């Protein structure tokens, strides 16, 4: 059975233990962006995959494109152990086409001693812009960056009101001298050496670095940011749907999942798995932010074409200015 997944959600041990438990030999290919995965499938290059790991908004998009199989929920065990907010997610009501596998947030990672002030949100960055010239990296994703600033204005992460989007763009444009680069990965060394003081990052990437360098802190802006979910789904073209159900059930099983989550250190949306985690992981605020912060976060949702186009224009302007 062929699996198409993000790089950090599987390892050799998972493939071996899954093989022992089910007798199914899984083979994992990885991708580094939802769009790459979608493009490959649309171009017909993904016919052999039985399992995909699309993120929330991509699930919505792929359901609209009729690329995902509706799940036979009777074949799945342990769905009721999912945390309440993943019982009926907006991106895929009733988990009809996808099962949440991991989740995380987007925030800032920095060294408080080196920076000299504390970050609670975008305002702290804007106010201290003179100390940050060329010292900030932001994620290379229009929706994450504009969305996070939109939240700081009190707007929705998925704002379609173009005036709100323009206001967010103007703020970023004014902040431009502080922005060293838009990179999703590759900021780690520069942050560690102090060449970059603040990096906007996914919680999953941030906690890897924090595990090595405890002086670093990850913070979700108090106005909220994006909360993302990576799910497991079965494409319509899956050659081996039965094995795919076995894979999903393997992930839903708390005993199996707890070993995987402890090893690869990602946040699980499964309450039963969470309860079995070692105490230090449970208390890890990078992986599991405080509930009141999480309540302010939103998932990235697909936008109408006109709005998408406007976001793209602002992004091109921002990266060419």
């Amino acid at each position, binding site marked *: 059975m062929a699996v198409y997944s993000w790089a950090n959600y599987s390892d050799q041990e998972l493939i071996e233990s899954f093989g022992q438990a089910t007798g199914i030999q899984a083979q994992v290919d990885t991708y580094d*962006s939802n*769009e*790459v995965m*979608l*493009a490959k499938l*649309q171009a017909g290059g993904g016919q052999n995959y039985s399992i995909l790991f699309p993120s929330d908004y991509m699930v919505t998009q792929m359901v*609209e*494109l009729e690329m995902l199989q509706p799940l036979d929920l009777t074949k799945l065990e342990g769905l009721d152990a999912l945390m309440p907010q993943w019982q009926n997610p907006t991106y895929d009501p009733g988990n009809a086409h996808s099962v949440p596998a991991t989740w995380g947030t987007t925030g800032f990672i920095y060294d408080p001693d080196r920076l000299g002030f504390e970050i609670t949100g975008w305002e702290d960055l804007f106010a201290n812009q003179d100390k940050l010239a*060329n010292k900030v990296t*932001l994620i290379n*994703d*229009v*929706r994450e960056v504009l969305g996070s600033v939109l939240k700081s204005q009190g707007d929705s992460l998925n704002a379609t009101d173009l005036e709100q989007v323009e206001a967010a763009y103007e703020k970023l444009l004014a902040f*431009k001298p502080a*922005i*060293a*680069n*838009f*990179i999703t990965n*590759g900021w780690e*060394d*520069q942050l560690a*050496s*102090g*060449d970059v003081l603040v990096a906007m990052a996914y919680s999953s990437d941030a906690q890897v670095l924090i595990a090595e360098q405890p002086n670093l802190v990850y913070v979700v802006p108090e106005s909220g940011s994006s909360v993302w979910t990576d799910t497991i789904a079965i494409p319509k073209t899956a050659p081996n749907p039965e094995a795919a159900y076995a894979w999903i059930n393997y992930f839903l099983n708390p005993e199996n999942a707890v070993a995987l989550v402890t090893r690869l250190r990602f946040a699980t949306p499964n309450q039963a798995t969470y309860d079995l985690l070692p105490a230090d992981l449970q208390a890890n605020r990078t992986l599991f932010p405080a509930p009141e912060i999480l309540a302010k976060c939103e998932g990235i949702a697909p936008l109408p*074409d006109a709005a*998408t*186009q406007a*976001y*793209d*224009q602002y*992004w*091109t*302007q*921002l*990266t*060419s*200015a």
Partner: protein
Amino acid sequence: MPQPKPTTNIGPSSPVPNSSGPSSPPTPLPTGSGPGFPRSRRSLGLPGWNTGKRLIQPLILLGPAGLWLVVLLLLPTLLLLELSLIPGFRLGQPPGAYGLGNYVTLLDPLYLTVMGRSLTYALGTTALCLVLGFPVAYWIAILAPQRWRSLLLLGFILPLWTSSLLRAYAWITILRPSGVLNSILAGLHLPGQAWLNNTPAIFIGMTYSFLPYMVLILYASLEKLDRRMLEAAADLGAQPHQTFWKVTLPQSLPGIAAGSLLVFISALGDFVVPDLLGGSSSMTLSRLVYQQFLGATRNWGLGSSLSLLLIGAVGLAIALLLKWGNRDSDGSLL
């Protein structure tokens, strides 16, 4: 890199005499009218054989490469052309009506800025490669001892064996504020440079990437230089700089043109260096193409028209070289 010395020109404006008129293929294959083949024609004596042979030989010789070009270059380009004529085409959505909307969008000042930046990066890189590469190629080809030449050349192209991504990351390590360069500058009590995430880093990274190509091509051109002319110039009392400007440089012009063109084309399409070293204001055409195809908008229509623009620019550059290169090389050099 030794090359066969006298090669004939190919191309539409070729000065090679072609007796069978403009409609025949410009292949140097025996067409039956050449002086070397009359015997075989007579001995076969089959009237239909020759026309068959005339068709089959090019087919066998050009077929595999031709198929390759058609399937992997011509068809995809035509597909891009079709997509580019559907405004706002997105995969998975019903395509709209044909129109020139995507090309009209390209005239937006925003995209013109991006094109201008791409051109600046490519032209600047070409100029830097030429200025840095010519002395090296000259030295290896003319001044260095014969037995060292291959080794020197090998040493120069060795960096090409590593991934361009790896080389870009190496430059991050060198150029970043606390990196190797600034440590050295600080040791020399010189002011530090903030080149990373800025335009200098792009020029440094791209020049480093493409310099070996320039040196290789210039070397091939300079190595063929007729040294007797240099001696004759010296005998007739020319100063070294006069010899250089009046003898060496004109003879290596085709090499300069070919090298510059190759570097220009590669730099225009480079994606890795602007992305990793260029910082927050380094949107280029190739990055824009990526953004349209694999970014949030997935506007494949606009992406296709941007791709065709790149292809067109490169095609134009090649056409210019063919014309320009022919005129100056008088058919005996390159």
